[in-house]
């Protein structure tokens, strides 16, 4: 066996490296608007070259957090460091930070090229260099032919690119993106997500994106911060957010999930536990990440795609449930089966439709078996 360190390609994970200093450091930041606490004693680090996503329902404080980075809001308490300097009292025009606005906020009286040049001209850049930089940015967002147009003369997708080019033109240390793709239709949004990632990589800029679209956050981000009521619920890589959520809130917010609530009871010596959740149903067997005491109230979370569905009784599986198909959500590539257990609880199971529809195995009212392994789900105590 070779050395495992040299065998794996270098992974971008500065948050796991204690010698790295973060680009942005929020230290016990609180922001109140009158009686309302938008950000509640929040501490977080964001590292250089990250694509950091702030995800949460509306009103969770993600936009306030971003506006504090841009300088449009001042924290009520706490310190915000950017590259080691406290920026709390620095006005927005003096920060090496640029923002792409949700409404794009293009200047309607200026052409596309003048919009992009606007920030450069404020920075006292020589005129010939401004022109070269504008051309470079137009090329980056593939709008070379549109420099002379006014914002109302181009399409929504093109406006989005102009806004991106304008915010990147000054080569900021940090780019803030407020719901940058919210106004685009789904197909264009997916394409643009990949473009954003490419631009982020090629320019090496640190991106902080605010979104309420969990799929978008999963696609683009190096790390996701799931927020609720002004607090960070979990900050982690997309795969860990999805596979090992730290709370029922995160599990439920990201993707589709089955939540089973019950009381823990020790099961095996190997750390597995049983969750007794409903009279007449077998207990759910799961593997908690940390030891759980007997009798603890906990939630078992399992993703529908990890629940197998079959017509025959599966032998020797850790968790087996029996029920009847109540509903089928057919999405083309996958189908989600809503299976009602005898006690009325509905468990969702997903199958990819690798066979043509006429040979589908299950239909409404079918009696089926559901099963999963003892490591397929997570045991949550929060």
């Amino acid at each position, binding site marked *: 066996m070779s050395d495992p360190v040299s065998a794996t390609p270098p992974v971008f994970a500065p948050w796991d490296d204690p010698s790295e200093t973060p680009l942005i450091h929020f230290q016990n930041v609180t922001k109140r608007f009158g009686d309302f606490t938008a950000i509640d004693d929040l501490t977080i680090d964001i590292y250089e070259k990250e694509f950091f996503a702030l995800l949460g329902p509306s009103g969770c404080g993600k936009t306030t957090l971003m506006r504090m980075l*841009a*300088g*449009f809001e001042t924290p009520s308490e706490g310190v915000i460091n950017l590259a080691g300097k406290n920026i709390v009292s620095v*006005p*927005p*025009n003096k920060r090496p*930070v*640029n*923002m792409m*606005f*949700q*409404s794009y*906020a*293009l*200047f*309607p*009286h200026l052409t596309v090229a003048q919009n992009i040049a*606007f*920030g450069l001209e*404020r*920075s006292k850049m020589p005129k010939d260099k401004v022109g070269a930089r504008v051309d470079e940015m137009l090329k980056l967002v593939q709008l070379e032919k549109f420099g002379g*147009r*006014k914002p*109302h*003369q*181009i*399409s929504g997708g093109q406006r989005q690119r102009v806004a991106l080019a*304008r*915010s990147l033109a*000054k080569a900021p240390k940090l780019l803030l993106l407020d719901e940058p793709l919210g106004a685009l239709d789904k197909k264009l949004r997916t394409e643009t997500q990949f473009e954003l990632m490419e631009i982020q990589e090629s320019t090496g800029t640190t991106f902080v994106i605010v979104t309420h679209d969990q799929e978008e956050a999963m696609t683009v981000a190096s790390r996701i911060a799931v927020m609720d009521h002004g607090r960070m619920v979990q900050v982690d890589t997309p795969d860990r957010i999805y596979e090992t959520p730290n709370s029922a809130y995160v599990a439920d917010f990201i993707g589709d999930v089955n939540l089973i609530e019950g009381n823990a009871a020790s099961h095996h010596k190997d750390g597995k536990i049983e969750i007794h959740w409903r009279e007449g149903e077998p207990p759910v067997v799961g593997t908690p990440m940390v030891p759980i005491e007997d009798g603890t109230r906990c939630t078992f979370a399992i993703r529908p795609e990890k629940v197998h569905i079959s017509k025959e009784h599966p032998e020797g599986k850790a968790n087996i449930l029996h029920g009847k198909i109540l509903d089928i959500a057919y999405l083309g590539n996958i189908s989600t089966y809503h299976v009602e257990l005898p006690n009325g609880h509905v468990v969702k199971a997903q199958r990819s439709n690798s066979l043509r529809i006429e040979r589908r195995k299950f239909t409404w009212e079918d009696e089926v078996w559901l099963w999963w392994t003892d490591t397929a789900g997570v045991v949550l105590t929060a």
Partner: protein
Amino acid sequence: MRKFTWFNAVSLTLGFAFLYIPMLILIIFSFNSSKLVTVWAGFSTKWYVELLQNEAFLDAAWVTIKVAVASSTAATVLGTMAAYVLVRGGRFAGRTLFSGMIYAPLVMPEVITGLSLLLLFIAIGLDRGVFTIVLAHTTFSMCYVSVVVSSRLVSFDRSVEEAALDLGCTPFEAFRLVTLPIIFPAVISGWLLAFTLSLDDLVIASFTAGPSSTTLPIKIFSSVRLGVSPEINALSTIMIAIVAIGVIAASLVSKQAIARRNREKKEAIQA
């Protein structure tokens, strides 16, 4: 298309007759060759010629234009600033009181505004003349400008200004380079409104004018008291013509702007 009915035709005729018959009579009699205003004695333009030789009227016209330009410009600057602060200044203490106070002169009787200004000028020992009329007109017309400009600012996407700050503008640069160009049409209409108000104000001007500074409305009013002369009719006809040309030009310009915008949009969609 609505159907033609006698009722519609009669209402239309009555309405327009009510509005325009007085002006029509004035215009017709301005071309009357008789000295008597109400007796038609044939067509003539002699009153126009006489008007152009009447030094007193020409002086008054010149004073009026100077006052209107100076006061509407000052009112536009002050009114725009006030509107900007009231709309953008956030919720500072007493904001409701301030915005109420800026609109109060709109409903204040002109006699009271004029009298209070007169008392102020006497109290501070300011000699009445062109300058005091300009001050007085600025005072009462700036709230009109403020109303026009703030209605534009309210419908204006705030993030455009934030984008300017974000790209390195100081707050003043953001106003000058972004906000002002966008709200400029509203500022212009505010200026035009203030200009018209100043042009035809009689009450406030007569309180604040001095012996050397008679405006056209004051001149007309005082000469009518000695009897209506055909010269006044000629002068009024000229003023109606100027206003009509101005209104028609303004509407043509804005129509053209809309047409151009629509055409550009169409081109953008086709491209």
